[in-house]
């Protein structure tokens, strides 16, 4: 009898844990990006794979941002998610991340999953890296989102000599049904920080 009660309790606990895990969107990759202050709305997020030892940036279109393979795959993953987007396009047209440098702490960034889940991030800071400072974007913090683009155009070499990184932190998530409900605070994560 007691054993049966324990089994039922364990099953209920497992179900509750599954619900909590699903509630924070684990395992659900983002498919769209919105940055209201940049007037970016529902920009498609694609996977940017590593081909022949490098991220295949040629796959990145004018209206897309790429999730760098081997970085975080979804919010609250082990690693931070890194999204790269063009700053400029052919003909010196602005790319999706053209105004990334204008983001300020507190600005909102939203990621959307395929099934309607929305994650709300807030910008914390921005900094620049050399192109070879790859390890710097591998942050062991699943609550972070890094937005990456080129910076510092170098006329003689006709290349961008730096990479601009905007770092945002997850502050809320919402299962938005029809897009009317406000984001609610995230439960405290059990992950070690």
């Amino acid at each position, binding site marked *: 009898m007691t054993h049966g009660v324990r089994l039922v309790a364990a099953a209920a606990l497992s179900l509750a844990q599954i619900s909590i895990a699903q509630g924070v969107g684990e395992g659900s990759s983002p498919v769209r990006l919105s940055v209201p202050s940049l007037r970016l709305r529902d920009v498609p997020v694609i996977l940017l794979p*590593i081909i022949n*030892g490098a991220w295949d940036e040629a796959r*990145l279109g004018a209206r897309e941002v790429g999730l760098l393979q081997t970085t975080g795959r979804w919010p609250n993953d082990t690693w931070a998610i890194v999204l*790269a987007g063009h700053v400029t396009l052919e003909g010196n047209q602005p790319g999706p991340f053209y105004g990334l440098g204008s983001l300020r702490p507190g600005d909102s960034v939203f990621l959307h999953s395929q099934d309607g889940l929305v994650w709300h991030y807030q910008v914390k800071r921005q900094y620049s890296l050399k192109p070879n400072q790859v390890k710097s974007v591998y942050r062991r913090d699943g609550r972070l989102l890094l937005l990456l683009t080129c910076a510092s*155009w170098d006329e003689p070499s006709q*290349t961008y000599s730096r990479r601009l990184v905007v770092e945002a932190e997850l502050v809320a998530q919402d299962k938005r049904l029809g897009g009317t409900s406000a984001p609610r605070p995230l439960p405290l994560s059990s992950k070690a920080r």
Partner: protein
Amino acid sequence: MTKKHDYQALITLLLSLVVAFATVNLFVLLPSSPAPLLPAGFTETPTPAPTETPAPTETPAPTGTPTPTGTPAATGTPAPTGTPAPTETPAPPPPPPPPPTPTPILQDPVIVKQVNLAQAQPGDIVVFTIEVINPNPVSLSNVSVSDALSPLVDYLSASVPRGSFSFDAGSRVWTLTLGTLEPNERLTFTITARVNEQAQPPNTILNTAVLTTSQGVTQSNTTTTLLVPGNLPGTGRR
């Protein structure tokens, strides 16, 4: 008093003497109770003094005219059933020393591995730190540690506090022979290698060490080093 009566009185007296003599002899000649055989390691508990020892109180008087046919057996005398009070308590022998019992191995030995780089690129130096622990109060023998290095790294060197080590380039197995791991001993050592050109992202460098003792084989955790591209993607067109 008649002469016949005199004889009867004399015979009765003689019989009483004989019976009394036999009773006394029974007490004197009866062997003392042998000490009980005890298993090794047990001490004797002194026997409590009997509270009641039935004493021979009556000698049955012959009825009628007994015929002197010899000395009658003292069948009517109750034998003492209790243990006679010890007149002298022997000192208990010192307890024998307990037989040596081997202390059991309570826990498996522990081997933990760490790596200094979570991400790496060709040319990077990776350092594997291995710690072995004997958590038991007894020593372990025939102790060795082996580590099969990934083909994505080239072995450079190792640092060990004691023991002797070797690296077999063919099998890529590094081996440390320690011999004995003392009780509660904790040893830390390192293996240094370089990421070679075969290491291309998005592969990973996995590494596991194995601790072998006379008690068996213990496997460490597996360290993971992610291979990453050499440059961040270029995201600008003109």
